């Protein structure tokens, strides 16, 4: 299997503080990679550096062998990289359907066709499909801001899949979601992984969620990779127990 994402020797410093300190890893096609670590270990900063949200101090990021370091987030998305955010990021004033259409529209046609063409950019069917898939059917016309937290979280995830991405980076998808919905979410992610062959990188606090979803896990501590392996290997690693699981 080929490498979808390669991160090599990534550094990010804020003033004197090294938030990410020489992280390297790679993600194979179709893999679900989990990244865990205690609060402030640099997980989110790492994501933001990969995704062009922050400028890395040093290091390189490659997508399918192509250098994407410092590429703008919107350009990156159009290459098939999608993401969610740690905090909820839906557009509260748009309906669920509009949110989904928005998430896919930039992958349809040209700027001009988006101005003069169909209002839904031909995405209504796809959006309905996604709404059904994430079990939001009864809420299609409701404003996203009025949904429950868990529903918004599902919508947030659904938006990340609208454009049929190659690589999806999920930042704490399980945070604040109740148990029933958590099961739903996991199941949906697995299904997409299996059906579309999409590759995932998941940052998560919820250990059970990560351990049961991911095929491989990386543990970060103080901006460095502490351990790497299957969930079982990581669970057994004494350094990890010391740094993180021990708490």
């Amino acid at each position, binding site marked *: 299997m080929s490498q979808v994402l390669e991160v090599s020797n990534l550094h990010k410093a*804020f003033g004197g503080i090294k938030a990410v300190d020489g992280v390297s890893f790679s993600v194979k096609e179709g893999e679900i990679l989990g990244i865990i670590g205690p609060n402030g270990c640099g997980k*989110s900063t790492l994501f*933001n550096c990969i995704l062009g*949200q*922050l*400028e890395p101090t040093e290091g390189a990021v490659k997508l399918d062998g192509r250098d994407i370091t410092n590429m703008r987030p919107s350009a990156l998305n159009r290459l098939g990289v999608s993401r969610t*955010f740690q905090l909820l990021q839906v557009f509260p004033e748009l309906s669920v359907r509009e949110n989904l259409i928005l998430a896919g529209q930039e992958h349809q046609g040209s700027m001009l066709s988006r101005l003069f063409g169909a209002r839904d950019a031909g995405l209504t069917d796809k959006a309905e499909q996604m709404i059904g898939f994430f079990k939001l059917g009864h809420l299609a016309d409701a404003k996203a801001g009025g949904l429950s937290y868990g529903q918004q979280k599902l919508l947030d995830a659904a938006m990340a899949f609208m454009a049929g991405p190659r690589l999806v980076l999920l930042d704490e998808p399980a945070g604040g979601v109740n148990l029933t919905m958590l099961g739903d979410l996991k199941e949906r992610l697995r299904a997409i992984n299996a059906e579309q062959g999409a590759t995932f990188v998941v940052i998560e606090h919820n250990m059970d969620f990560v351990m049961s979803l991911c095929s491989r896990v990386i543990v970060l501590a103080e901006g460095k990779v502490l351990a790497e392996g299957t969930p079982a290997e990581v669970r057994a690693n004494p350094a990890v127990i010391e740094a993180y699981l021990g708490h």
Partner: protein
Amino acid sequence: MAEFTAYLIAGIATGAIYALAAIGFTLVWQTSQTINFAQGEFVMLPAVLVLLAVKLFGAPLWLGALIGIFAFILIFGAGFKLVVVDPMIRHGVLPLAIATMALSIIMKEGAKDGFSAEAQNFPSFVPTSTIEVFGAAISLQHLTIIACAFAVIGALQWFVGGTRLGRQMQATAQNPTVARILGIPVERMVLLTFVINAALAVVASVLISPIYLAKFSNGEVIGLFAFIAAIVGGFNQVRGALVGGLVVGVIDSLAAAYISSSYRLAVPLVLLVVIILLKPEGLMGRKEERRV
């Protein structure tokens, strides 16, 4: 050379005025991340209120000054914060910035209709005599303004860095959420900033008005130049106001001397654009990280 010195000194004197007015921009920016488009009017109004108090109550000047200054700090320091900023800040910074535009019209037109459409003399607390510096004339009034601008910035830096209250205020400015967790009375700190801003406006007004005269429309010019000064110096640093003010003052003076005088006003504006292109955070400003 003597000619150049004369322009330079005149520019520094003017620049100190802009600096004094620009400090408020940086203060309000730091606490509420908004631009106070009424800053020029904040500097215009205290002098007008003082004269109004003298006129209305027939009070002697010192009493009029007390009434006017007190009323101003109450209304435009505390009142501004409580009535305008507080209910609006939860809607984001854009409405607040626009609200200050509305406020500037109210202050300006209020001063015109409530006081006078004409310029008025404002008494100087400093002798109006001039002295020679390097062969150039400079008035004691201007020297006082320069001294005050430095003193105010120095005092603010000391206050923010060297006192408990000041550090609390700075913590609030940098991160209100964390400040609140640390037990800092955030609301009171923000209020304090606005009161300081109003008090500084009073200082600027009392020093500037004897030279510029008290007139309702003065805020437009002072506000524009102070705004340019704040951007050039760096919006997120109090000392940026001083540097920006002096730079803009000197450049303006030299532009009047050596560039077509009908395009004099264009020179500071071009400087502003160049700064934005080359060093957007301003000469003294801190670079702000892109946030996620």
